[in-house]
């Protein structure tokens, strides 16, 4: 009895929402970053699920590119966090409001 694709999609959705909750609720930049990674992976899961359902490999290629983007994003993001940390000695997102309107 194979697992219906819907379940995978639901799981992906759940994980995605968990990621968003993490971004909104936690104030530490690192945790926010990890939740973003979580959201990206949730999307990967959905991609793979659809690839399987439609029997087309494009889904998996998309995941490949998502991974690339995620990697670059993490690298640059962390570099920024370090730079901020060095100047403001904090990782808390709320302190960083220089760009107020």
């Amino acid at each position, binding site marked *: *009895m*194979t697992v219906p*694709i*819907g*379940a*995978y*999609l639901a*799981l992906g*959705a*759940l*994980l*995605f*929402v*968990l*990621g*968003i*909750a*993490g971004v*909104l*609720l936690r*104030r*530490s930049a*690192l*945790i926010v970053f*990890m*939740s973003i990674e*979580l959201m990206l*992976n949730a999307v*990967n*899961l959905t991609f*793979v699920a659809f*690839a*399987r359902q439609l*029997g087309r490999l494009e889904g*998996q*290629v998309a*995941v*490949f*590119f998502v*991974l*690339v*983007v*995620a*990697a*670059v994003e*993490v*690298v*640059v993001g*962390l570099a*920024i*966090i*370090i*730079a901020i940390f060095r*100047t403001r*000695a*904090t*990782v*808390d997102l*709320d*302190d960083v409001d220089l760009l107020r309107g």
Partner: protein
Amino acid sequence: MELVIFALAALGAVAGGVGIIASRSPVRSALSLLLVLGCLAALSLLLAAQFIAALQIIIYAGAIVILFLFVVMLLHARSGETAPNRLGWLTPAGIVLGGLLLAGLLGTVWARDGGGVASVGAEFGTAEAVGQMLFTTFMLPFEAASVLLLVGIIAAVIIGRPEPASPTATGTPRRGVEARKR
């Protein structure tokens, strides 16, 4: 049999997700991210995406999470939340919005469900098949991705570089410190 694996992996993934959000110390949340990635890899296998699963483990779990740990170690002392939370209204808003989004997504999933699962050959998700496609139809995006990676690397080096002690010979104002004075 497949159902059992799926249930286990799903449970693991959700637990990992909650762990990232709830845990106090960033190390534990990094580890729970690791757990999530593992479960996802398993699920990918279930969905005949061996290449992706492998990638997931090698790149994601292997590199990115490790990088996280490095940074966590680097900033380990002051990562706790000390300052008062100025955006008090954000937590309830986050929960409400999250709930709404979940409902929306599940709604779409449930509304669109149906449509049979296509039968697929054995070598469907293998590295060879994906590689075949990657280097033929997706040639341009692949190259673009490589350029993106290059840029990312350079950016990280420049941003992450510690300020040189003495002002640089060219007299350009040292970034950061001067910016703050104005």
